């Protein structure tokens, strides 16, 4: 088990290198000159521009630039932006916002998705089941832009105006965990729908298994047959899905962060791509790649805990 973890972490190194190089090359290939853009409408003194280019190694070939970046990264230096702010300082607070948002979304997804899915499975073919499936279809069909603004208006604004309930902040991250409820739900929307359906299918399938019939024949109550024997097995594919989804939630927050004006890495990423801030973009992407890798590793390890038939050597 320990050797497996080490091997998986070692495998992450080439993945991280490849991903950063790719992103670096893409930023490099963007049209336009970031130094000229820095001066805005005014003309920049060519000597100053040259000095800046020299300082940021912009005249060097791609691979050399990448080398400078990686050696800096290994010494804990994420580089500086063109406006001379260290990238690490720029990102640290924003990562916190995005992580809070992603985990709020993940928790909402897990609780609502699995809850609704189990409920639907246990009422298979009845009205509840059909209603839950209809709701998931709605969640999948309506885009984030619509759910975001509608929830802002209904739960944020109207609820306060008509009933005086001021519980859901509509923008910013100033109200602690409550600030993340609405954006978290919006971000998790489609994932909730998929997880609900996956949970329903998984439990319905499991309840058909031979060992469920055995458990019933042992004289166990239906509650115990479902709660212990079926659930343990039905949960296995759901954990995989949830783990893999964490990366998606982290990287997919650009629109949600904009709607709810959360100052996270999604907004920063969009802005930095626009300004051709290579080190910032690569820093964010490297972080996301690491999140994916670690989340997948945790999922694989959890898999072995949940399903004893799986062993890692």
């Amino acid at each position, binding site marked *: 088990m320990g050797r497996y973890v080490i091997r998986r972490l070692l495998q992450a190194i080439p993945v991280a290198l490849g991903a950063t190089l790719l992103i670096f090359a893409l930023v490099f290939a963007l049209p336009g000159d970031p130094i000229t853009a820095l001066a805005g409408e005014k003309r920049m003194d060519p000597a100053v521009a040259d000095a800046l280019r020299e300082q940021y190694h912009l005249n060097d070939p791609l691979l050399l630039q990448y080398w400078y970046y990686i050696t800096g990264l290994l010494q804990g230096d994420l580089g500086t932006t063109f406006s001379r702010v260290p990238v690490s300082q720029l990102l640290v607070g924003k990562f916190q916002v995005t992580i809070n948002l992603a985990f709020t979304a993940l928790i909402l997804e897990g609780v609502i998705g699995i809850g609704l899915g189990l409920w639907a499975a246990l009422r298979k073919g009845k009205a509840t089941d059909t209603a839950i499936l209809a709701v998931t279809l709605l969640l999948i069909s309506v885009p984030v832009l619509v759910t975001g603004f509608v929830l802002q208006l209904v739960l944020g604004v109207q609820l306060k105006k008509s009933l005086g309930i001021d519980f859901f902040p509509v923008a910013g991250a100033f109200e602690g965990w409550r600030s993340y409820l609405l954006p978290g739900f919006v971000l998790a929307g489609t994932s909730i729908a998929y997880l609900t359906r996956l949970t329903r299918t998984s439990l319905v399938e499991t309840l058909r*298994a*031979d*060992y469920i*019939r*055995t*458990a*019933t*024949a*042992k*004289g*166990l*109550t239906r509650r*115990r047959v479902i709660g212990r*024997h079926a659930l*343990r*097995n039905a949960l*296995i594919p759901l954990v995989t899905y949830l783990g893999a989804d964490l990366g998606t939630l982290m990287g997919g927050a650009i629109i949600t962060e904009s709607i709810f004006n959360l100052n996270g890495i999604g907004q920063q990423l969009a802005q930095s791509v626009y300004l051709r801030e290579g080190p910032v973009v690569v820093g964010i992407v490297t972080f996301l790649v690491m999140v994916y890798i670690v989340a997948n590793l945790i999922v694989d390890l959890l898999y072995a805990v*949940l*399903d*004893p*038939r799986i062993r890692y050597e």
Partner: protein
Amino acid sequence: MKKTAADVLPTEGGLGNEPLLAVDDLHVEFTTRQGVVKAVNGVSYDLRAGETLAVLGESGSGKSVTAQAIMGILDMPPARIPKGAIRFRGTDLLKLSEEARAQIRGQRVAMIFQDALSALNPVFTVGWQIGEMFRVHRGMSRKDAQKRAVELMDRVRIPAARQRVHDFPHQFSGGMRQRIMIAMSIALDPEVLIADEPTTALDVTVQAQIMELLAELQRESNMGLILITHDLGVVADVADKIAVMYGGRIVENAQVHDVYRAPAHPYSKGLLESIPRVDLKGHELYAIKGLPPNLLDMPPGCAFNPRCPYRQDNCVSSEPPLYEINSTRSSACHYWREVLDGSHG
């Protein structure tokens, strides 16, 4: 006053002349999209303590459905029991509340299944699964239940039980898994054990060991054993009596040696003749012609008539009742005399 489970539960009564378990004119049907499938149409058999009844028949003959009805583990719906009774020590199980039935299921009437790999839960250790019987039904602690699980694994002769109690089902061989299944079913000393094709998934040498184990456990505890199988070879050594099923009905009831000597129903006769025999090596193996009946569209009269070499006109026009041949024997064939004579000759 509302009766509690203890008031209606059969206790010591029913022994003596009364059988331990009596299935009486049981009907089971399933509602499907294609129509109503009549899986069991008036099955009756009984079982006494210490006795082994073999229920013989091909897939779809209703033998497993009857067993699941006894256990009360049929999914209802789609299943329905429109008629019949299942008396355990004189009490009709079908009239009991679900609560009262749960007190019998697994504790006094237990069951083992065909494929032990899929019948055991893959994510729990075998010790946990055996011990669950003691924890749930006897309120034992985890530790005591584990100790009892080891004892039971010893009793069904699983080597190194003390270590293996922590293993998962997939870590055992097929024969050992079936022993685990048996250990779990006999955990609470049931009075009736139903074994639904317990050896079908195993190879021949292991089959013999499992049958021997079941026979031995039965001798020790005097429980009644219902052995469901399609394999006549398995039956001969261990069963006392036999019920042959076809198309959801019992076509022949007999002591096991009587059937082997001279079957009284064309279907039992066909089954016996289709066993490979050393003295007939080189001859073509006999096979019953035709296909099992479609339960959605049963042939009129006797269900076996399209495949029967003894068929006469009245086999199509009237369904044969279960004719009593003597006190231990009956056959659902209008021409049982001819079949019996033909068998002797």
